[in-house]
């Protein structure tokens, strides 16, 4: 799922500074699961911002709402009235939700309250890690189910760099070296011979290097 982190309060305060009535709009799916923008976080942020507003002698008004998914028009429209009443919407959704709001309400100021961080999962409660870069050309079948694009700091395709030590990545010793994991997995699977094959140049055009991506399913289009 998409993982996100709330922005520092100082940054949010600066974003909302020009506005009086602010709707803090949470999203009930990915950002809720990543503890960044669900109904609970909306409440905590709203209370924090009310404190900030009162400390500065302002009388900003904060409304709170959470929709099931901000990345769908139909869900956003459920709070259309609250959006209309606000001077600005502080969205705690991922970048998709923020843009969906901006597109659906062209005259409304929409501000991001979180940083959309990565596609990943919780390996333990409170610990979220990146697992996918959405590169558009999955090679997990060749790498023992461990992605060197998302999990190797240098996207290496042909084995570990010289900085792999004790199974950890030199860039962040808290992270496992993806190639150590690939090596271990392939060893378990009896497929170490796969490592001998030269991996061809990656086709980055399927990633963002090919420009913004779009999927059209003509069979589904109405």
């Amino acid at each position, binding site marked *: 799922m998409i993982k996100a982190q709330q922005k520092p309060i100082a940054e949010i305060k600066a974003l909302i500074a020009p506005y009086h009535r602010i709707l803090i709009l949470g999203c009930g799916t990915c950002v809720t699961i990543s503890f960044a923008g669900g109904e*609970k976080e909306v*409440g905590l942020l709203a209370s924090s911002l009310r*404190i900030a507003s009162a400390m500065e002698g302002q009388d900003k008004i904060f409304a709170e709402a959470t929709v099931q998914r901000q990345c769908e028009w139909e869900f956003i429209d459920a709070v259309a009235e609250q959006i209309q009443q606000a001077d600005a919407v502080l969205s705690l959704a991922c970048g998709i939700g923020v843009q969906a709001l901006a597109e659906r309400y062209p005259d409304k100021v929409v501000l991001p309250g979180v940083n959309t961080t990565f596609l990943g999962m919780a390996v333990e409660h409170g610990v979220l890690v990146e697992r996918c870069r959405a590169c558009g050309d999955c090679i997990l079948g060749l790498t023992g189910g461990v992605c060197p694009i998302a999990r190797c700091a240098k996207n290496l395709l042909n084995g570990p760099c010289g900085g792999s030590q004790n199974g950890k990545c030199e860039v962040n010793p808290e992270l496992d070296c993806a190639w150590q994991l690939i090596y271990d997995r392939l060893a378990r699977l009896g497929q170490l011979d796969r490592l001998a094959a030269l991996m061809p140049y990656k086709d980055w055009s399927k990633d963002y290097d090919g420009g913004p991506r779009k999927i059209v399913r003509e069979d589904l289009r109405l």
Partner: protein
Amino acid sequence: MSNLSDRSTLPAEPLPPCQVACPAHTDVRGYIHAIARGDFEEAYRIAREPNPLPYICGKVCAHPCETECRRGDVDEPVAICALKRFATEQHDLSKGHAPGLTVAEPKEEKVAIVGSGPGGLTAAHDLARMGYKVTVFEAYPKVGGMMQYGIPLYRLPRETIDLETAPLKDLGVEFVTNQRVTDVDALLADGYKAVFLAVGSHVGRKLRIPNADLPDVWLNTEFLRRVALGEKIDLRGRHVLVLGGGNVAIDVARTALRLGAAEVSMTCLESCTTQPAHPWEIKEAVEEGVQMFHDRTFKEIVAENGKVKGVRCVKVNFRGFLPTGAPDMDEFPETEHVLPADLVIFAIGQGPDLSFLPQDGSIAQTPRRTIQVNPVTLATTKPGVFAGGDAVTGVGFIIDAIAAGHRAARSIDAYLRGLDPASVQPPEPQKLNDLQQKTISHIRHLKREEMPMLDVNQRKFTFDEVYLGYTEAQAIRAAHRCLTCGAGARVEETKCIACLTCVRVCPYEVPLLARGTANVPVDQCQACGICATECPAKAISMKLYSDEDMIKQIRDAVRKAKYNGEPAIVGFACRYCAYAGEDANVVKASLPANVQTIDVLCTGKVDALYLLKAFEFGADGVFVAGCLEGECHNDKGNVHAAKRVAYVKGLLDELALGNARLEMFHMSPDQCANMAEVVSTLITKVKELGPSPVRRS
């Protein structure tokens, strides 16, 4: 986010086993929870609601609730009965026996109640509240029935009965004592539109064995009644043998002891493990010196010259009673022996005196010589006449009779309003399932509080009350053992996004994933509240409190704490630990007015939002007082609380409010008395920071 699911369409929730086991379905969990958090008046209110005799029940209820208590599957049952007694002792009677009790507009119809035992009193109470004119007829001089004439004084002081019956007079119930009703039809002819027969079971029985009619062969009921009526019976030097092993037999034996008997022994068919008396009654009797002879059948009262010498017994392996009423057992050959005694008291059972019923059989009897009723409505075979209690069921518990009194009152009201009495009886509640072994394995063991008692050497010579009642600290500790069954987390399925937070944080491994959402099985949840506080979707709520309630409490607390220019401090104090010591309520009351505490049962329930809200409402300082590390009632509630405090401290820094305004204290009950001192460390820091710049208009 989405509409709340419509609770009205949900099936009735299963109730805790204690509440289901209580014939009156008392909200046991409710009053124990109130005691646990120090709200004793609320506890009394809840205990009083379904029971017009809470003081009596607090002392002598047979408490079938405790047998069913699920804490018993962990270690020992919660001391429910003793806690009810504690709630009654804390109640300020000047506020009335039933504060807030409503009474309907007076009605014309008169109702007669025959018998003033718990069943009769309850029916009288309910019907009077409904507005009926109620007259209670009592054959003996005082009201109370078997409570007055059966239960020994050392278990139930008579002032307690007076205290419970007085309010009934205030409700307009008329008591006619010393009047044995002999003609039910005459009552109906006299203008009573309905009659409730609650005559109890006052006739003892003897076995037809040789010499059973000798003057020194007595009956349980008569003996206890004579003592209760104040007759001075001198048993000094006597050797008393009680035949029977039930609770009444124990009462008889212990009463005999108190009347000076030199030796008291009991004998019964049952073994020491199957004896029908409550184990604690047996234990107390034995402590006082009563001797028990189990596994015996009685063949003959041995007498010489009309003087009792003992009872000839044979050893048996008793397996229970056959449907005919005969014992199912084998006698062991050559085991015949005489248990010596010079006074024998039969205590093998008792039945109602039904001689007053109409001779024409219009009020039918059962083959067991009890009054025949419809079990749902308690209607007898005569229209307008209802019956309940021991006269219908044979000897039962007080609380059974109270339940019957309620049932009868509902039926009589329906009958008088031309409704079908069956239609007004509530359905039988559904009971929570048993705790699973996995859940049990995570529950902290807590020792049951011993009921303080008179010293055995002191008590066995007097009729002084044996049980002394809990101290406040004992009661709170005893209440903390309640698992608040069924009052736990509920998941709003439409909001749940199956993020698994609850599954991961539950210290009891209770939540499950089912059909794509989380499910917190109500029968396993321990109501610690951690999942509800951690749920990022706010999809989990708790039965006994809500964010709205808490936020309202916080707002009130901040307002009250703004006092005399001192820093306004709001604390969340754990009632399991930090705020559970001796005199916690006194400590609470003695804190300076600028320190307001909100009691919580485990700091795991303290949401990060609550801390922020306190600051939002203008608090200058906030603290959370939880248990010592490793001592949390819910294993990790205080750990979660400490983490939330740390998180909010970070926010306070980001807001430039100063993280020193918020503190987590870990305290044991012993340190409770130092609460003011502990809080003063926070006050000092807050003073250094100055008043909160958050000023609400």
